């Protein structure tokens, strides 16, 4: 029997089915591993053993009774700390929510638990999901399990690292400008950002509501598809969740890729891309050609404007969403003589530097006299980027890009210049702006052994196509290029 730390969903279920291990023993095993590894990697911010063992006992009872098991029965799950979990501390990686225990569960969590998954705990992330390296967490950075002196990426670095380190079988992250895909790339695990509206945001503590999405990390693309099948679909509690039918993401995975048109945007391979990343992505494209994909050259002419427009819209929305953290309803309060003084001190001390920077920028771009020049301009650029994708998908079935222009960097290497950190999101931000789904899958490593990720974009609600291509790539040895 292989070690549970390497198990996929189907291996967990085979082990439970054949009574090789009980769900309770499995959870014990994962907590033992977490206890050992967490001091080094700082992946989990809170554990939820009471809830986990209660769920494990339910699964064990169902197995003992010979009941049919739900699709994710007994699967250990880690949840990013910006996603609400009833009674389990949820801090968003921020001091301003220290000790906060949500009174309800996010819909994605409810659906996964109803499908039998077991919530192990909450994972570290950049504060309020703002960052690309996890170094903006108020509780210290996560270390990359593949290379511990390197960052795991961000903002969902803890969720990516939990799967990469074998401290969960699957995990949930959130993606606003790349925060699922980029850490997936940095930690060497498949990481899926669904279409906007595909997965309910109910219970996701908002950063930028028109961009935020919940999606899975998993050991394999098939496992990511299994999680997607459970969390996708309309939720009456999220007015932006779509009623579009949810296809069976698993049934189409093994089809041939023959004749599929893959668009390669010339605009994505310009300056700023690391030579080793370029080499592995080009090798990945050749592998997809061998699998039957037809290479099509496409143009995405507004790509170069995406980061600037994104940082207008995302910070504007953040400045509004984060107004609720004021020391009245949750989190610690810094006393003040007046209500205003209390607000200002609580927020000034509760938020970290990156969050304050984005609140100031977002407030500025929305302030009187600047709205047209910044916010309205940003929305117009967003329309152009969405148009780039629509036009590209007339010529191509999927679009292939690098996930990140650079491999994982060292802790502390890029913290001095926020703008430089923002610019590294260029390949993921475009899809965020357009609302389309994208997955990052491992596509070889650098000469130093650092993971590289290849991104597959599909049209809105084309998750099945994205997963299909990613699965074929993975099966053909894409991760060992």
């Amino acid at each position, binding site marked *: 029997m292989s070690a549970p730390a390497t198990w996929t969903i189907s291996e967990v279920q085979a082990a439970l089915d054949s009574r090789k291990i009980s769900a309770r023993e499995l959870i014990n095993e994962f907590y033992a591993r977490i206890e050992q590894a967490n001091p080094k990697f700082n992946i989990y911010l809170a554990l939820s053993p009471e809830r986990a063992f209660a769920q494990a006992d339910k699964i064990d009872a169902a197995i003992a009774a010979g009941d049919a098991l739900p699709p994710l029965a007994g699967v250990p799950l880690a949840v990013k700390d910006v996603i609400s979990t009833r009674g389990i501390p949820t801090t968003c990686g921020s001091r301003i929510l220290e000790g906060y225990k949500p009174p309800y569960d996010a819909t994605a969590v409810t659906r996964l638990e109803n499908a039998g998954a077991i919530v192990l705990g909450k994972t570290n992330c950049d504060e309020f999901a703002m960052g690309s390296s996890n170094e903006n967490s108020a509780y210290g950075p996560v270390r990359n399990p593949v290379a511990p002196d390197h960052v795991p990426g961000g903002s969902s670095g803890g969720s990516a690292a939990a799967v990469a380190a074998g401290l969960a079988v699957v995990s949930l992250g959130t993606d606003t400008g790349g925060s699922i895909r980029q850490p997936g790339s940095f930690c060497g695990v498949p990481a899926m950002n669904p279409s906007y509206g595909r997965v309910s945001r109910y219970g996701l503590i908002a950063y930028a509501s028109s961009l935020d999405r919940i999606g899975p990390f998993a050991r394999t693309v098939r496992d990511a598809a299994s999680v997607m099948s459970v969390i996708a679909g309309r939720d009456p509690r999220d007015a932006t969740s779509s009623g579009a039918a949810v296809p069976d993401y698993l049934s189409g995975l093994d089809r041939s890729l023959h004749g599929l048109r893959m668009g390669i945007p010339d605009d994505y391979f310009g300056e700023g891309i690391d030579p080793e990343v370029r080499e592995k992505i080009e090798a990945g494209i050749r592998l997809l050609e061998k699998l039957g994909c037809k290479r099509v050259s496409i143009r995405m002419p507004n790509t170069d404007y995406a980061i600037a427009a994104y940082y207008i819209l995302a910070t504007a929305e953040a400045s509004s969403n984060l107004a609720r953290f004021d020391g009245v309803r949750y989190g610690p309060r810094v006393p003040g003589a007046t209500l205003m003084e209390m607000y200002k001190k609580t927020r000034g001390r509760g938020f970290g530097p990156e969050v304050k920077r984005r609140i100031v920028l977002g407030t500025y771009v929305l*302030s009187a006299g600047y709205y047209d020049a910044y916010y309205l301009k940003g929305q117009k650029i967003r329309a152009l980027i969405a148009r780039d994708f629509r036009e590209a998908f007339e010529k191509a079935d999927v679009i292939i890009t690098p996930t990140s222009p650079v491999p994982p960097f060292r802790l502390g290497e890029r913290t001095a210049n926020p703008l430089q950190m923002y610019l590294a999101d260029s390949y993921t931000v475009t899809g965020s702006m357009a609302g389309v789904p994208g997955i990052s899958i491992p596509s070889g490593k650098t000469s130093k052994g650092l993971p590289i990720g290849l991104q597959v974009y599909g049209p809105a609600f084309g998750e099945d196509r994205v997963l299909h291509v990613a699965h074929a790539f993975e099966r053909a040895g894409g991760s060992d290029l």
Partner: protein
Amino acid sequence: MKISRDDVLKVAALANLELTDAEVETYRGQLDDILTYIDKLNAIDTSSVEPMTQVVAASADDAPLREDVVVRADIITEVLEGAPDPEAPYFRVPRVIEK
């Protein structure tokens, strides 16, 4: 220079954010860099472009209206437990109305 020290202070006041002198200076410089970078958007003519205000196109299926009915959550105790200064069933704040 796109943004002055006073601009940062004005915006911080709008956002109810207390900043130290050092923070004001750091953010002023960084926001100046970011706003200068954002200026690149002026290179593109968007006068005939409709702004994108929502991602999922509104249709009867995707933007349904629901009945406006009250649903009791019954979580007052849990909500107040998380507050820094609760006095059931209220949140207490510094005095805002003079006697």
